């Protein structure tokens, strides 16, 4: 490594560059996410009635399901931006992929925490090796591996290519994991939205779920924008290090 840059000049340089300043002003987005989260909390705990069979525990569902949707969406985005990176080789695509992977792992962790909290009173056990549970857990492991791999590759370009390969292969694997385990064993409740005959939610519950979904999605975008900005700054810092070293 080369001699360190003088203090502050690096940061000043970073902020003078174009892409780092993009998405700097996210106040409106943050405010919207905060208000929606507050409103969703009010709805979940104050205005939505208790579920008949499960009682108050069922309220976890309003956050558990949006967490799962957002996590899956984030992993899908890793897949998309990994393909884009391999095709176009722009640094921001790699930044987008890694940001989505980290935020996705965060939400996937929340799914894996809220799920057992609900399952203990309802199923009587915290965990069962059921199709959805196991495939969520495997998904979580795959993207933890993705982040671990990135930590052990020095070169920026190699790191981007290798993690893109893992991001693509890992996501292609998701349906296989799901179907193989589903064939093996399943006890997770069937989807209540668009789940076919005999499924469905009372309108008030469905509306609460959608409000939670909007709130969590906004929260996801807030986290993603911050993580993305951090990654872009990191990339620029690495470029500056290389320039300073050369």
């Amino acid at each position: 490594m080369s001699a360190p840059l003088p203090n502050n000049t690096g940061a000043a340089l970073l902020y003078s560059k174009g892409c780092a300043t993009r998405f700097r002003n996210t106040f409106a987005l943050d405010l919207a996410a905060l208000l929606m989260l507050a409103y969703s909390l009010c709805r979940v705990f104050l205005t939505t009635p208790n579920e008949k069979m499960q009682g108050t525990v069922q309220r976890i569902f309003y956050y558990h399901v949006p967490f799962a949707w957002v996590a899956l969406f984030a992993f899908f985005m890793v897949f998309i931006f990994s393909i884009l990176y391999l095709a176009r080789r722009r640094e921001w695509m790699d930044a987008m992929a890694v940001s989505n992977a980290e935020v996705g792992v965060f939400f996937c962790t929340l799914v894996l925490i809220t799920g057992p909290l609900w399952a203990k009173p309802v199923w009587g056990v915290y965990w069962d090796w059921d199709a959805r549970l196991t495939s969520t857990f495997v998904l979580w492991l795959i993207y933890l591996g993705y982040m671990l791999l990135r930590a052990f590759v020095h070169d920026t370009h190699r790191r981007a290519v290798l993690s893109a390969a893992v991001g693509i292969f890992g996501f292609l694997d998701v349906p296989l994991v799901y179907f193989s385990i589903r064939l093996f064993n399943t006890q997770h409740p069937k989807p209540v939205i668009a789940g076919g005959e005999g499924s469905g939610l009372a309108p008030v519950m469905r509306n609460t779920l959608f409000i939670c979904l909007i709130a969590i999605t906004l929260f996801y975008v807030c986290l993603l924008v911050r993580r993305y900005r951090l990654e872009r700054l990191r990339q620029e810092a690495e470029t500056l290090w290389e320039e300073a070293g050369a």
Partner: protein
Amino acid sequence: MRTETLGGPETLISGMVWVAVAFAGMLGFGRCFGSEKDDRSLDGLLLLPGDRSAVLVGKTLFNLALLFAVEALVLPLAGLFFHPPEWGCAILMLTPVLFLGTLGYAVAGTLFAAITSNTRLRDLLLPILLLPVAVPVLIASVEGTAMAVQAASTDSVLVRQESLVSMKGWIRVLIACDVIYIAAALWLFEPVVEE
């Protein structure tokens, strides 16, 4: 389906066999790119005229041969130690499961060995990355093998038919895995090894 075989000798034997194969693979896959990286001989291989995916195919065939050798050793030993009835017949019946499962595992293993060979701590990273990804192949292989063993060892015609139907289901899963793994590996190998 699961409760019928749970804890029976079929599950035990198929589990033992596939644990041996999975461990052998994890240790073996890393070697096939590790020594190439250490000696910088991979660069030479990639300079050869022709399609680069040939390198992937060659490495995969080597890993397949390695795993088949392990299986050729483990299967008779499993018969020796667990003495299931009609073991020879069972080995014949589980050949397609064995072949497809080993193929999928070897393809995924070779690609991930190529990926992790670029990193420090590659011997540690390979199993961490490979095992979650190989979950569908391993589940389908273990279950398919158990079904084949059950079909061979049962006296009841009904149980045999059920086991065979269920084995065919697992073979379909394995075929789906193999097709997707091979396509993805052929596509991703090129960017992974480029300099």
